[in-house]
Each structure stands twice: as C-alpha cells, then as structure tokens.
C-alpha cells in the first residue's frame, strides 16, 4: 500500500517537473524578446531605418544593411528555388531506385547538416577568389544559395512524396507523358508544401552571419547597392558588428537591428503558415 503511494507520488512529481521545465523553456523565448525589446525600442525610429552606419551611435542606422539583406534574399531565391525544386523533382519523380540515387540523398542530408561557416570557406575560395567576384552581392547570394539548396531539396521532396499516387496514375492513364504528369499535375499539388519549405529555408539563410563575414561582407557601407556587382552589408552582419563593440550605445543599436530582423523573419514565417493553411488543396 505504501509502496503504491510512493510510486504514484513519483509519477505526479515527475509530471510537475516536466511541466515546470516546459514552461521555463518557453519563457526563455519571452525573456529574450522582452530583453531585446527593452534595449532596442528606444533606438528604433525613422532616423534609424533611414541612415547609414556611423561612428556616432545617435546618427547610425541600418539603411544599407536592410537593403543589402533584401537584395541578398531576392538573388538567393532566384538561384536556389529553381535548382532545389528541380533536384527534388528529379529525385522523387525521375530517378531510378538505385544505390547511387540513395548516395546522392545521403549526401544532401549531410550538406544540410554542414556548419554554415564551411559554406563561407567554400564561397571565399570559389566565388571571391577563384571566380574573382570579390565581396559583391554575387558572392554573397551564391554562397547563401548553396546553403539553402539542401534544405529546399529535402522540404520539396517531402511535399512531392505527399502527393497521392492516384493523381499520377490518372494522368498516365489519359496518355500524358512524364513531363506532362510532373509539371501539369504533381507539381501544382505539391506547390503549397514546396512554398512553405522554400520560405523557411530562405528565412534561415536571411539570418546567416558567419558565411557573409567569411566572404568579406563589410559592415561599413555608406551607400545602397545598385547592381549585383556592388559590395554590400546585411542585417545580421551589421548586428554582429554593433554587438561586438564594448559601448552600451552600440548594444542598443544592435538590439534595434535585431528587432527589425525579427520583424522581417516573422513576416516571412507568417506567410509560410498562411500558405500552408489556405492554399493546401490536398490535405493528407
């Protein structure tokens, strides 16, 4: 009898400990947001959004970083989305079930787990030095594209796999060729899933700092990029630069920059959720 009571007590204690741990870890998110908000909100004004970086905290802003990030994400999307979706289509719809296809898939899994700083070393050696693109938007966006590629492939493969067999078989039964089946029927069905994965991959690469530092993204850029060959800075790089300085004023600027970055990422992620909920024609 006593034994039974002890066991039930253990059970209840464990549940409460688990509840406590879960609540504590969720509250970490709120502490982080509150801390950043409290430090940064005072610096976040129109002047901050509309000024170039400066040695004087009162005059500094994120105009060039904000536009650099917009350029980067646009170019990265242009390169990585077609490549990633095409790779996923090949692997799911065309490739024979052979061992070398399996090897390619394992390789993509490993690329997705490779630390981002190694993509930076790759970009530095290939795009910056070998291809002579210097510290331009080309180098930055090509490096980020390679980083986003495996994530997009894996997400798109999942979306393609979720398309029911009947859709393919129905199209084949009517005499469609493989490309007609894939592009006329399978891809449109998988599109919401693919778009969700793509947006998540892009928002991840938008927050990447290390690869951009490796390829030499400058933190002091007092002009807006006008062509893809221009040097650039990006929001995370600018935030890193301010956070790495000892003065408290610059920490405030970093926090304000973080607020802008998080607002952008939140918009992207919210649109991913929206697409997933609203556009999904086939709910598995």
């Amino acid at each position, binding site marked *: 009898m006593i034994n039974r009571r002890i066991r039930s007590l253990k059970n209840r204690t464990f549940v409460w400990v*688990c509840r406590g741990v879960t609540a504590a870890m969720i509250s970490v998110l709120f502490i982080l947001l509150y801390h950043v908000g409290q*430090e940064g909100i005072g610096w976040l004004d129109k002047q901050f959004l509309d000024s170039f970086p400066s040695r004087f905290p009162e005059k500094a802003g994120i105009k060039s970083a904000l536009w650099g990030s917009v350029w980067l994400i646009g170019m990265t999307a242009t390169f990585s989305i077609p490549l990633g979706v*095409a790779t996923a289509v090949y692997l799911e719809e065309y490739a024979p079930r052979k061992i070398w296809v399996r090897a390619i898939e394992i390789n993509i899994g490993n690329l997705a787990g490779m630390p981002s*700083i*190694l993509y930076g*070393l*790759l970009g530095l050696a290939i795009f910056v030095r070998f291809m002579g693109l210097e510290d331009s938007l080309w180098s930055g966006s090509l490096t980020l594209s390679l980083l986003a590629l495996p994530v997009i492939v894996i997400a798109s493969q999942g979306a393609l796999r979720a398309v029911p067999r009947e859709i393919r078989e129905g199209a084949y039964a009517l005499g469609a060729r493989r490309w007609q089946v894939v592009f006329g029927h399978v891809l449109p069905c998988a599109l919401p899933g693919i778009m969700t994965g793509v947006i998540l991959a892009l928002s991840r690469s*938008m927050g990447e700092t*290390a690869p951009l530092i490796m390829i030499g993204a400058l933190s002091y850029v007092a002009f807006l990029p006008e062509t893809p060959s221009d040097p650039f800075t990006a929001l995370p790089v600018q935030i890193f630069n301010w956070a790495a300085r000892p003065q408290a004023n610059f920490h405030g600027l970093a926090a304000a920059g973080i607020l802008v970055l998080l607002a952008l990422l939140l918009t992207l992620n919210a649109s991913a959720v929206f697409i997933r909920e609203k556009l999904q024609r086939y709910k598995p």
Partner: protein
Amino acid sequence: MISKFIDHALHWTLVVCVAITVITTLVVVIILGKESYLFFQEVPVFDFLFGTRWEPLLEPKSFGVLPLVVGTMKIVFGSISIALPVGLMIAIYMSEFTSDNVRSIVKPFLEILVGIPTVVYGYFALTFVTPMLRKLFPEMNIFNAASAAIVVAIMIFPMVTSLCDDAFRALPRSLREGAFALGATRYEVAIQIIMPAAASRIGAAVVLALSRAIGETMAVTLAAGATPELSLTFLESIQTMTAYIVQVSLGDIQAGGVEYMTCYAVGLLLFLMTLVMNILGNHFQLKSRVSQ
C-alpha cells in the same frame, strides 16, 4: 514527337541540377584538402593535432590545435548536458503525459526558438546571460564558456525534443498498454519501457545535436571570447574552432599566407568531425525507423 523530345531534354536538365549538389560536396572536399595539404607541408600533422599552444598570428608561432578543440568541446558538452535532459523531458511530457492540444501549443514555440538567428543568441548571451551569471560568480570573465554553452543549449534542445518526440510517437500503443495492464504508472512506462525502446533514436538525436553545437559560430564568437587556452574552467574566455575562423576573416587575410591556410586546416577538422557525426546520426535514425 516534340513531346518525346521535351521529355528527354527535361530529364537531362534535371540531372544537371542534381549534379550541382554533388559538385558542391566535391568542391568542399577538394578546397579543404588542397589548402590543408599546403598547410601540412609547413606544419607537421602531429604538431597540429597534438600541439598544446595555438599562436598562429604572433611570433613565436605555434600551431597546436588542441586549445581550439578543447574550447569547442567545452561548448559542446556544456550545452548538451543542459539540452539533453531538458529536451528529453519535454519530449516525454508531450508524448506520454498530455493530449495533442499541449503539443500543438508547445511545438510552435520550439519552432520559433529554432528560427531565431544565431547572432541574436550571441547578443542575448553577451548582454543578458553573462551579466546574470556574473551576479553568481563575480570573478567571471565578460567572455566565458558558460554563457555561450547556455545559449547553445537553448538553440539545440528543440532539435532533441522534436527528434525524440517523433521517436516516442512511432512506438506502438501495445507496448504501453501491456505495461499499464501490469499496473505500471505513466512515469514507469515512460522511463522503463518507452525510453529504452527508443534508445537508438535518442542516441541519434544527441549525435545530431552535438554536430550542430560543434558547428555553432556566431553565439560563441560573440560570447565566448578569442583566447585559445588549454584549461578546464567555464568561467574564463576561450576560443572555439569556428570562432578562430571568424577572427581570422575579420582581419585582412592574405591568400596563400599561413593564416589563410590555418583557416582551411581548422575547417577540414571541423568538416570531418561534423561529417562523421551526421552520418552516424542519420544512419541510426533511419535504421531504427526501418526496424520499427
């Protein structure tokens, strides 16, 4: 006829796209290998791997990578010793003790934590965690391993939770019901039945989380400092392998210079460590999924 031509043309276009992922891997291996080869022409491999002093930028130069490896390991073991119990407990709680409602509330929060850029965690460590810790340990350095390990733990525990949760949910109901029928409490089922049954996938989750922690860059660069020391305390400034690569690239690197090559030698070591862990982790994950 045209339709057939399109079919073939498209097929080969897609093959070219797939080839890019393979080429990326090959190029990474070739670049890291080539620069490291040049580096090891000047510095013996043994001195690099087992040397205890890392002073590549100042005279007299010394290229022992151990201090950087020890710095990385401090972050890795410090963070996993927080992230494993925390991540595992939340996963057990979500899969064994509550309804799906709780999961649908908790999961989005974990996804947000994963989505926050690492530079933000670096800022958080530097301006919030470190000042908090310094109230407890006044002698602590502003840059220290403890604070970086704590934020890296916050970054990797959602991964542990989500992989373990998937593993627990994949276990058949009959396993739990058999134990309940014998009079076991939920706690006993979770600890004595569910966790052992999912052991290999828990292991896979830990290995994948470790690999993530090894490659973590911005949080440790901002919070852990830039002094490669061979020590065991968590209160002092350290330098990790990733933070060293960033430090060098923030200065002006001369291509072909010895600093440039050290980056790639350290990068090669980082690549091999994470590659082995990712292969092991993915392998265990898939193997146990098939056997279930």
